[in-house]
């Protein structure tokens, strides 16, 4: 009987040790051509904030759209979220010539947490595309 109690406790202890390890894993990333940027008002603790979402044509499965979002805050000329909103929109509008000239442009790499919230934004330039994503990721290892 005593053994039966001790085994679940040992498992729980192991699980408790495993959770912080899992939490320390490096964030995932979503990379691709920025194709759309969305803004919406959300209510957080009785305060109306701006939520910005970015949709990319995913490098890992071209033709598949994936959306990530920033932590809600205030969009303004005086905030990072405002600048990110403008720059992501600029990336979306930037012509992608990869099919015509093999020269991509307007791509982004978004490091995200488990909830899809953006932790770091990488705005890729010309001619940097899906083939360069490993090189981008290696800059932060």
């Amino acid at each position, binding site marked *: 009987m005593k053994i039966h109690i001790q085994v679940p406790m040992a498992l729980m202890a192991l699980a408790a040790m495993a959770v912080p390890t899992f939490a320390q894993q490096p964030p995932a990333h979503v990379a691709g051509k920025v194709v759309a940027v969305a803004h919406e008002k959300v209510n957080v603790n009785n305060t109306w904030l701006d939520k910005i979402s970015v949709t990319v044509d995913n490098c890992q499965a071209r033709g598949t759209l994936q959306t990530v979002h920033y932590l809600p805050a205030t969009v303004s000329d005086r905030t990072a979220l405002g*600048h990110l909103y403008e720059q992501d929109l600029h990336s979306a509008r930037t012509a992608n010539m990869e099919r015509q000239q093999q020269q991509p442009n307007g791509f982004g790499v978004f490091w995200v947490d488990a909830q899809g919230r953006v932790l770091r934004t*990488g705005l890729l*330039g010309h001619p940097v595309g899906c083939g360069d994503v490993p090189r981008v990721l290696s*800059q*932060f290892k």
Partner: protein
Amino acid sequence: MRKAAFSLAGMALLCGVIAGMALPAIARDVTGKVTAVYHEPVVVNNKTLDKVSVSVNNCATGQWETFAYSPGSVSDDNSLGFLFNDLANAARSMVTKNQYMNSVSGHVTLAVNEQNMIQRTTFWGYNWECGRDLDGGAPMSPASGAKPSTTTPPTGKPAATPNPLGGLRKFGGF
């Protein structure tokens, strides 16, 4: 005589100390095409600040290198906000060249310290590649002295190795 020599030595030492205090140590200049710009929020002394980093394709090595600014607040009211926007524009700027018309833009020279923190950012203009004017100008060499300032158009010579391929001239001048 000896007293005068001591005074001169003391003055020189004092000048050196002042210069050392006034100017942050710049370890090296890196010139290259901006390939990516990054933003991430970081916590410094319990404050959340914006950290802006930039990757350049180093003209001298052909390798990507990434450097960062001291964390601050990205805003239209400060230089970090302007740098973030201008670097993103430099990254997106096209690099297309052919024998009839060169078209290069988006090159910068970053003066960085030992911690890879950016001390000075110089934006090069149209048809300037790796510190070289492709539109007919002579190649620049680091030995020529003056470096371009951050606020005026570059007229001096960059610290990067000139493009070994030589200058492509506009309208067919290989």
